[in-house]
């Protein structure tokens, strides 16, 4: 599964995208973020306030309790500020 990070989330984590293989039991976006936070302190720091994070699954807006079944691309980012 490919995970993408944007804006300050990308800067705090230090990469824009990476391939990850989460363990069994990581079923939803919330599970994925919880697992990412256990990997390294920079992830724990970046995801400290998950209320400030939005998610897209295969380039469609999604929610933290959405399942990851069949998903190839997960994007995590702050609320959008275009326009």
């Amino acid at each position: 599964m490919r995970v993408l990070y944007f804006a300050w989330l990308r800067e705090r984590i230090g990469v824009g995208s990476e391939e990850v293989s989460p363990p069994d039991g990581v079923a939803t976006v919330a599970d994925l973020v919880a697992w990412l936070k256990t990997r390294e302190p920079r992830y724990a720091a970046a995801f400290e306030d998950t209320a400030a994070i939005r998610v897209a699954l295969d380039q469609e807006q999604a929610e933290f309790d959405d399942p990851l079944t069949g998903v190839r691309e997960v994007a995590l980012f702050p609320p959008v500020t275009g326009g």
Partner: protein
Amino acid sequence: MAVRVQEADFDPGAELEALAAGNTEIGAVVSFTGLVRGSGGVETMTLEHYPGMTEKALEAIEAEAHERWALQASAIIHRIGPMIPGERIVFVATASRHRGVAFEAAEFLMDYLKTRAPFWKKEVAADGTAKWVDARESDDGAAARWAR
């Protein structure tokens, strides 16, 4: 219908002319052009986006506008990359038989663009300090009024 995400500047006059060209059903053309503000000592603003999703999100917003209103034509242009205050950053235009539809649909396009399209602004001040722009609750409120 047309969506463009580009680094280059655009010419609103030329875009408006192209929008209505050849369609004499059009009686109203409305457009919005957003500029980079220089308030707060901003020296440069950089627009980051999510290539792939950005275009899909803008196309979905435009398609929804055409579903809701009897539009004859529309256009959305959003720039990415570094810009300076005074530069054009975003453009939406709508064309319809009468003005009411074009006004409403143009507001809808901007309200949804600001809350649903994956763009992020980073401001750099003259002293070099960089700051990611925070999302505004008033933008969520503006988008919420179109909820069905």
